[in-house]
């Protein structure tokens, strides 16, 4: 059982000027599953993501990836280990083309250095070609190929969310952290996105998902962790969570309307 846990946090705590955003939080993500993290606004979900990806340093606790401690590593080192993410509001490189955006995911796997780039040495050319081809492939799969030479800021919002996903996937992650991937999408875009995410574990990518849309969560998740005020309050299969009175009280009880946009 323990062996197939790829990503795990042990008692992580993150404070902002006295406010405890995440409080001794544990989560264990099993390989090749879709694990959802839900909770009301301000519950600390995004903070957990930021701690895992190294953007924030936790005051306490450990983050483990394939049994290795990630604490103290920088975000780019964490990506290189195999954890990629998307952001709640797409953080694309707005003045660059979609293709270039997607190529960003490959950056950490590139080896070409300063001099070989200037001199265009053969291995650098080969690498460039490979980077472009892989990025192009992901653009194809997500239906963004027609936009490849458009600047990211000029494409529709739904496509921007897909592009961010393409960028993260181009990094060939083992674990993918998705922060509200369907937020702001229309129904058909939402369906495309869900279908795509659902297929990821089969390709060997474990997904940790933060989502507010209960249809998405219930439909996709293998396991759900619920957090509130920075703490884990429940964990279980979608069915268990749906029937958990604590969760209903803390979260679902407030009604869907509150839950559409998060903070």
């Amino acid at each position, binding site marked *: 059982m323990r062996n197939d846990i790829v990503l795990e946090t042990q008692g992580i705590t993150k404070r902002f000027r006295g406010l405890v955003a995440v409080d001794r939080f544990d989560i264990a993500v099993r390989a090749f599953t879709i694990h959802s993290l839900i909770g009301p606004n301000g519950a600390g979900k995004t903070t957990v993501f930021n701690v895992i*990806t190294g*953007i924030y340093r936790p005051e306490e606790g450990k983050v483990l990836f394939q049994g290795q401690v990630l604490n103290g590593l*920088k*975000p*780019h080192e964490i*990506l*290189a280990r195999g954890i*990629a*993410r998307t*952001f709640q509001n797409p*953080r*694309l*490189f*707005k*003045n*660059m*083309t979609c*293709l*270039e955006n997607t*190529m*960003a*995911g*490959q*950056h*950490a*796997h*590139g080896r*070409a*250095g*300063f001099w070989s*780039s*200037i*001199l*265009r040495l053969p291995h*650098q050319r080969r*690498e*460039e*070609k490979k*980077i*472009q*081809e892989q990025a*192009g*492939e992901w653009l*194809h799969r997500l239906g963004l*190929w027609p936009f*490849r*030479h*458009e*600047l990211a800021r000029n494409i529709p919002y739904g496509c921007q969310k897909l592009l961010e996903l393409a*960028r*993260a996937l181009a*990094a060939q992650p083992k674990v993918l952290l998705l922060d509200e991937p369907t937020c702001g999408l229309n129904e058909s875009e939402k369906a495309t996105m869900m279908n795509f995410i659902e297929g990821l574990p089969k390709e060997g990518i474990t997904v940790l998902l933060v989502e507010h849309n209960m249809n998405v969560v219930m439909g996709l998740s293998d396991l759900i962790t619920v957090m509130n005020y920075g703490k884990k309050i429940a964990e279980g299969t979608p069915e268990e969570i749906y029937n958990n009175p604590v969760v209903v009280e803390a979260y679902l009880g407030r009604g869907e309307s509150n839950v559409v946009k998060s903070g």
Partner: protein
Amino acid sequence: MRLLGKRPTWLYKQPVRWAFLAATIALLLSFPFWASRYWIDVGFYVGLYALLGLGLNVILGEVGLFNLGHAAFWALGAYTTAILNVRLGIPTLALLPLSALVAGGCAWLISSPIIHLRGDYLCIVTIALGEIVRLVLINNPAGLTGGPNGVIGIARPVFLGHVIRTPLDFYFLVWAMVALCAFALRQLQRSRIGRAWNYIREDEIAAEAMGVDVRSLKLLAFVLGAALAGLAGNIFAAKMRMVSPDSFTFMESCLMFCIVLLGGMGSIPGTILGAALVVLFPEIFRPVAQYRLLFFGLALAATMYFRPGGLWPRRRAVEFTAGRAARP
């Protein structure tokens, strides 16, 4: 931005670009043979500021680090050349790489602790840095820099037995450097390093999350930009045959800043165009000597009004249309 949109895309088609590049090179090569010595010297200064602008463009244009103290690195290069040549008699041309190395090395030392600062805070630190370097030069530490008098008597550079002395020689020296650097920077722009720089400029956090080692790449940009300024410093010192602190004022840093933004952030031809404008403008307005800077100020603001993206911005969207991205 509206104005930019109207730019016909055929201008960016590959054959047109090559033709344009060839025409520019031809113009630059032939220019000194029909222009007067004065205009050759003006051409030299365009090249010098283009070199400085290209250096700053790496820092400011590619990575988006606000650097308003670039003149400091220029000064470091110039003084390295001056002191080592006058004191130790090392040939001036041999000091060209060394000046770049010293400027780059100092940039690395100085920027390591400050590189994490964001936006305007980095900006003020670089201003402070520029002032510190200038004041230290004036205060003549250990009698090295000659204080406000500067260092005089720098030997003329000798290239394969040919003494570089006339405006023509210097014109070709500086433009050879510009061509070399522009080429190298163009190669970098199209590599993973250049893209990573741009990722940082666009969104630092996303770049880091996508595996870009932000700190190292920022430092690389700073060092490279400073090294280019060091090169410019060497050539400037060789041309003037003396260096003094009043050549490296805050105003010069501001001018370089304007060069990059006038041309367009991250645009190599734009930077060269910006340098040409900044140097040519006061020269063209020589007849109204007392008022030329007044017009210059107005022109800066007006350019930003009519072309906020710069006069010659980099057009990524059409750069790829040559079909370099093969369909998988």
